[in-house]
């Protein structure tokens, strides 16, 4: 391993140092790095991420990604249970404590602001699927003409298109209603059906940052909206650490040609 290997894997940044009972990446212990009044939680980066090519190779290995994502998440979840946290994205790695501390100093304002925004709030996910239609009538081959079959098939396809259009329209209304109940909202791209394993198409993949005191009311609103909008089936996921509502920590250095980029630009409020 070269001297400039990435040795630290960042899980998240909080204000206070809290004990972390769960293990980090590769079941290694988690420790804290303090700077700028902030506390970064790291575990040793796994071997084999000392170069971009190696990291990319890992990221293309689904078993590695799955294991690593959950190892990362269990630390973030523990931190979120203890207090406000800015979770790091997957594979945010640093060479040493000094460089991580410098990053905390540099982005302290943005990180502190993000911690304030997520304090006392939890992320909830709401996914919406096209409501399943009635089962198609069994094909009556006996005496059924080819024309009748084609007409029935065409009617089924038309009905499916209508259900999809209805669900998309309902998804917009549901998202708007939930966003009004949240301090912040974010739309992820709907997940491919091959990944969801659901028979119906996903039309809403929303994330909502909700005050903890409003969590039950938010869940009740999801149930009510599911009953109000007949075109869509809703699923609530969470609670989640506020992954969808924090800046990405340590994004690349600003391009000299575009000095406004980089840093905490994703925060929606650069320091």
């Amino acid at each position, binding site marked *: 391993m070269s001297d400039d290997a990435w040795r630290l894997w960042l899980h998240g940044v909080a204000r206070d140092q809290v004990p972390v009972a769960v293990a980090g990446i590769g079941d290694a212990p988690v420790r804290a790095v303090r700077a700028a009044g902030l506390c970064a939680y790291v575990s040793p980066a796994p071997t084999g991420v000392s170069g971009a090519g190696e990291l990319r190779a890992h990221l293309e290995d689904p078993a590695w990604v799955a294991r690593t994502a959950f190892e990362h998440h269990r630390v973030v979840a523990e931190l979120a249970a203890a207090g406000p946290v800015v979770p790091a994205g997957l594979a945010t790695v640093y060479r040493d404590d000094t460089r991580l501390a410098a990053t905390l100093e540099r982005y302290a304002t943005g990180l502190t602001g993000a911690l304030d925004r997520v304090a006392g709030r939890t992320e909830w996910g709401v996914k919406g699927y096209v409501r399943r239609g009635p089962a198609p009538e069994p094909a009556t081959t006996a005496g059924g003409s080819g024309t009748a079959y084609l007409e029935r098939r065409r009617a089924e396809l038309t009905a499916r298109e209508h259900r999809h259009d209805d669900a998309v329209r309902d998804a917009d209304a549901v998202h708007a209603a939930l966003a009004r109940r949240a301090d912040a909202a974010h739309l992820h791209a709907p997940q491919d059906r091959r990944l969801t394993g659901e028979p119906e198409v996903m039309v809403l993949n929303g994330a909502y940052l909700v005050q903890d005191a409003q969590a039950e009311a938010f869940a009740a609103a999801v*149930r009510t909206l599911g009953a109000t909008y007949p075109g869509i089936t809703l699923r609530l996921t969470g609670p989640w650490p506020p992954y969808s509502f924090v800046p990405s920590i340590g994004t690349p250095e600003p391009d000299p040609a575009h000095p406004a980029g980089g840093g905490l630009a994703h925060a929606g409020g650069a320091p």
Partner: protein
Amino acid sequence: MSEPAYSREIALVDLLDRVLSTGVVVAGDVTIAIADVDLVRVSLRALVSSVSSVSSVSPISPDPVLPAGPDGTP
């Protein structure tokens, strides 16, 4: 079907939406952004279905249970 099923499970794809939500994988202090992230995401999304769900973990739950990893999933 109108009742949202409150799931105690975390699906890997939901987690990846979040931990990769910026679409940026970076080395925090050395300006190395992994290029072609979109391609990585595409290949991931085509492949993670085999490990798309693992058992429960909750940031609020007092005793989160995590699998050792996809190899340890039942």
